[in-house]
């Protein structure tokens, strides 16, 4: 069974190749058959392998070397897959949610001209993402890493006829590429240090070669962090994600919520040995996470566009994951990743359905009252939103977020600031989440529903809604059942977080305060947007600068525009004709000037030449006489 591992990424690739080559010739029925089928079979194999994996006594590590990629003077990364518990969680999420989103897309995109193209890209993405998480060495990981970047680019710019989609896609690719460059340099350093890029070898060698806080290790950790920050849209490379919403909604769900953006989390978790040896870098991970969490949360409060709210919310939730990584709560981060994948995919898909139903209306303030018209979507969206807002006990989001809050407070590397930021983040999350719900589904109807989603849209939503609720119960806190299936599953690979001493007794207090804040946030949203709808407009007009500041994501775009884009474009524009050519042109001009001078003497008039001859003769004779 384990020999089939290679099929998991291979099948989506195969599907993609078939769709690219034969896309235009296939019928509308066979396209989803290939596109959805390939990912479906992958998901099935994942389940089978996962079953084997869980049912074996000692968790195996499956390695599969496919072929030798490059072998030069000791630099010998292979195309090899490596499956352990961490990868298993990821491939499960990728294939399973991927499959659901493919099913959803088969209806959602059916009227689009680029139906086959869409599935080709989506399959390519799933394949690359699987390579990323299954990679045995960092170079192959980098392969998948760039591959998903490419697919993200292609899918954001999927509707290529709108020029701004292309720009958004380009922005996403370039910004993530900035991070990737840092990561590539990290790879060079790692190779120089260890002589290999094999992840397992690095994990074994790193503690031997470095002591805690070694400079080299810290630099490498920072460089890897650079890559992670780019991919996961964290400060300072977060601005591409809101613009990435230009892509179709399933893309936002799959790539920009559930899977690709969590690649950074995966990378840091994968290389956690390095980060543990570099406490400074790890602390910075936490700081980045917490700052991003707040910034994105505030921005989400002011957005009009339904999908942009979700985008900022994604950034914010990724901030939570980074915070967890920063305090060494590895499994908590992965747990939150999984739950987040469920509910955020759900929210995006539901939002996509809403937007489709309202004929591409994105503005929440033009929606309203959809509760009755779209009941399935309303209920699933509500469940997702509850999970995002972490309403206590009934939602999965509560359990995953609670774990992070607790470890930010109680973990050895946690501190009160991290905790306070996370806690206030939870409040903001609740406010913007239910602002979204109330604006969209409550109040009076403002837009006409043109399209009622069918069962291919509804079924994935319902499955995800169930998962968003029930998945939380596999991991229950100490004070509440103490049932840690997930952590134990990951435990041999990811060490448990050591807690500060004598602090366990306070856990219930944290849970209560978190629960209170999320409920409080919900109520505040209810008050502002249902009870007194005029109030928020008053806020807006009271501090318009602040509102705009937040609306534009803290003006990071303008900042980058001024600092990087404008100088670059200016530099390029003034040098369009290449300064280096000037000296050569000057040389040419001198030569042609001399040419013109001599050409002038060649007047074509015979007597001129004769005068020249005579003058020359005089000159020579005079010289002869003088000398």
């Amino acid at each position, binding site marked *: 069974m384990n020999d089939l591992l290679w099929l998991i990424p291979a099948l989506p690739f195969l599907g993609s190749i078939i769709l690219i080559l034969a896309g235009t010739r296939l019928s509308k029925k066979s396209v989803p058959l290939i596109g959805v089928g390939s990912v479906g079979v992958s998901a099935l194999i994942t389940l089978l392998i996962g079953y084997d994996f869980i049912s074996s006594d000692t968790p195996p590590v499956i390695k599969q070397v496919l072929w030798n990629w490059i072998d030069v003077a000791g630099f010998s990364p292979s195309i090899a897959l490596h499956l352990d518990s961490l990868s298993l969680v990821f491939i499960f999420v990728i294939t399973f949610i991927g499959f659901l989103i493919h099913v959803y897309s088969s209806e959602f995109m059916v009227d689009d001209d680029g139906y086959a193209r869409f599935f080709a890209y989506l399959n390519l993405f799933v394949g690359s993402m699987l390579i990323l998480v299954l990679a045995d060495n960092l170079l192959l990981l980098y392969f998948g890493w760039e591959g998903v970047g490419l697919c993200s680019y292609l899918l954001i710019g999927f509707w290529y006829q709108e*020029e701004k989609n292309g720009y958004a*896609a*380009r922005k996403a690719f370039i910004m993530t590429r900035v991070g990737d*460059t840092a990561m*590539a340099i990290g790879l060079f*350093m790692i190779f120089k240090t260890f*002589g290999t890029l094999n992840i397992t070898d690095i994990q074994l060698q790193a503690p031997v070669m470095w002591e805690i806080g070694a400079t080299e290790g810290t630099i490498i950790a920072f460089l890897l962090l650079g890559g992670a920050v780019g991919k996961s849209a964290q400060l300072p490379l977060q601005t591409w994600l809101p613009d990435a919403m230009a892509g179709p909604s399933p893309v936002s769900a799959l790539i920009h919520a559930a899977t690709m953006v969590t690649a950074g989390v995966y990378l840091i978790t994968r290389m956690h040995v390095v980060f543990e040896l570099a406490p400074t870098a790890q602390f910075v991970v936490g700081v980045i996470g917490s700052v991003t969490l707040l910034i994105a949360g505030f921005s989400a409060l002011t957005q009009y566009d339904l999908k942009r709210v979700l985008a900022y919310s994604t950034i914010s939730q990724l901030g939570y994951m980074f915070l967890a990584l920063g305090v060494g709560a590895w499994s908590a981060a992965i747990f939150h990743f999984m739950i987040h994948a469920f509910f955020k995919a759900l929210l995006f898909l539901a939002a996509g359905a809403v937007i489709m139903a309202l004929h591409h209306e994105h503005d929440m303030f033009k929606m309203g009252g959809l509760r009755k018209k779209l009941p399935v979507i309303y209920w699933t969206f509500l469940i997702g939103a509850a999970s995002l807002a972490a309403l206590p006990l009934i939602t999965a989001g509560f359990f995953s977020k609670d774990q992070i809050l607790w470890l930010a407070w109680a973990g050895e590397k946690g501190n009160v600031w991290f905790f306070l930021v996370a806690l206030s983040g939870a409040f903001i999350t609740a406010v913007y989440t239910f602002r979204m719900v109330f604006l969209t589904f409550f109040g009076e109807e403002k837009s006409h529903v043109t399209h009622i989603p069918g069962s291919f849209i509804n079924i994935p939503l319902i499955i995800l809604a169930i998962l968003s609720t029930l998945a939380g119960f596999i991991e229950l806190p100490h004070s509440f059942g103490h049932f840690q299936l997930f952590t134990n599953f990951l435990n041999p690979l990811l060490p448990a977080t050591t807690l500060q001493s004598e602090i366990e007794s306070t856990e219930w207090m944290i849970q209560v305060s978190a629960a209170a804040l999320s409920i409080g946030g919900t109520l505040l949203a209810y008050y502002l947007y249902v009870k007194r709808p005029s109030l928020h407009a008053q806020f807006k007009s009271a501090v318009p600068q602040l509102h705009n500041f937040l609306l534009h994501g803290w003006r990071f775009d303008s900042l980058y525009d001024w600092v990087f884009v404008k100088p670059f474009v200016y530099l390029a524009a003034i*040098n369009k004709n290449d300064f280096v050519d000037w000296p050569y042109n000057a040389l040419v001009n001198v030569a042609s000037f001399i040419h013109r001078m001599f050409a002038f003497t060649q007047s074509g008039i015979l007597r001129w030449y004769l005068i020249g001859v005579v003058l020359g003769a005089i000159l020579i004779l005079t010289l002869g006489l003088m000398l």
Partner: protein
Amino acid sequence: MILSGFILSFMIGGILAWMAALKNLVLARWISLITVCFNLFIVIILWVQHLQGDESQSAWILDFSLPWIPRFGIGFHLALDGLSLLMLLLTFFLGALSVLISWKEIQHQVGLYHFCLLWVLAGITGVFLAMDLFLFFFFWEVMLIPMFFLIIIWGHENSRYAAFKFFIFTQASGLLMLVAILGLYFVHANQTGTFTFDYFQLLGADIPSGAAMWLMLGFLAAFIVKLPVIPFHTWLPDAHSQAPTAGSLILAGLLLKTGAYGLLRFIVPLFRDQAVAIAPWAMAIGVFGIIYGAILAFSQTDLKRLVAYTSVSHMGFIMLGVFSFNMIATQGVVMQMITHGISTGALFILAGIIYERIHTRDITRMGGFWKSMPFLGTCGLIFAMASLGLPGLGNFVAEFLVLVGAWQATHKLTIIATIGLVAATIYSLRILQKVFYGNQSATHGLADLSFREKLVMIVLVVSLIWLGLFPQPVLNTSRPSVNVILETTASSDENGTRNPKIITIKQKRYTHE
């Protein structure tokens, strides 16, 4: 015998094609296509045989030597090693493509065109095979003159300017190389008493270091102008943008590679100490070229000019890699020569195909071509991705190897070079954005690709992906040659000269079972 056969067959094929064109244009095209394909076939057989052969054999696969002008010690000496073999593969491969893509594009003076094309290929083949410096210089000039005519006769609106600029730059630098070759010849004769231009004998020459520096600069001049390296690159955008499609393909794909080949074949083995001495400067201008070329590429509006500047940028990696003096970087350089030839050639073909349809190279007048030409769009996407170094495509392997190797030699420059990857992303995506995204501009009668064009595109795409996923055969082929090239550098290490930084990667494999 086979080796001279390659060159002769091109020369004879060229003349035949010229004569055939007097009667029948199609026949001329077929003659040149068959000539190139036949040679390609032979060299592929050679390669397959070599790959199956014994690993431990000498680096030299074939050797062919005839006296030519014995009183001056000039011989007709051709030899093939792994590096030359790869270069020949690339030459014949791109040669076949260049015949194919000019099938429809060239409609006047077809015979002369194919004559020039095949003679350029003959010259390039000769450059990659010649092991006699005089012969090398001879072929260096042979490839120059037909190229000049290719640009000036079949070029675009400003072709005279471009052709003369190309000719003057390369010719002037070539003459410096001639001076250096003669200098080397006499220095060697002074010491040993034998007058010879033979590469293998000159390799052993013990040149006084003062003279060696000047001689090396002479060689270097020719190679870095051809490569080209900032600030000698300005002929390239003009020549590339004005040449016909096949001309651009050969310029970018092959002529630039002769410069890189020269660096590897002559500069490093012949003048090892001097090369080591100038390495920091050489790497610095290489890296500067990476960034500078990328910025310029970004600002261009002429599609072919844009691609030309990307060449400048990519060739910086070659400078960086060659002067890092280690196995990884040098192997990366070999890969870069091949993959850059294919990917940039592909972009030029793309530009040519678009030009055939809308008669402009101005990207501000393009847009939205994905709709009417989805096949071209997909190919363009892959080529642009190759150009920005996406893993899974050949260029990534090349650039990554160069950078990993260069990291062993210099940290700062490697970091800057890596930032060049971001710049590469910016310009590559700009191509896609301007050409394929957006609303379709105007109502051009844009047909998607014909079968012939599709064939060319598919071959290019497949070879790029193949190089990206299975680069090992190529690396294995070049390994013995690179070893030979680097051994001479390593030997200088023992003499106590400056450390050329040969890296032996310690293989510390911990078994974790």
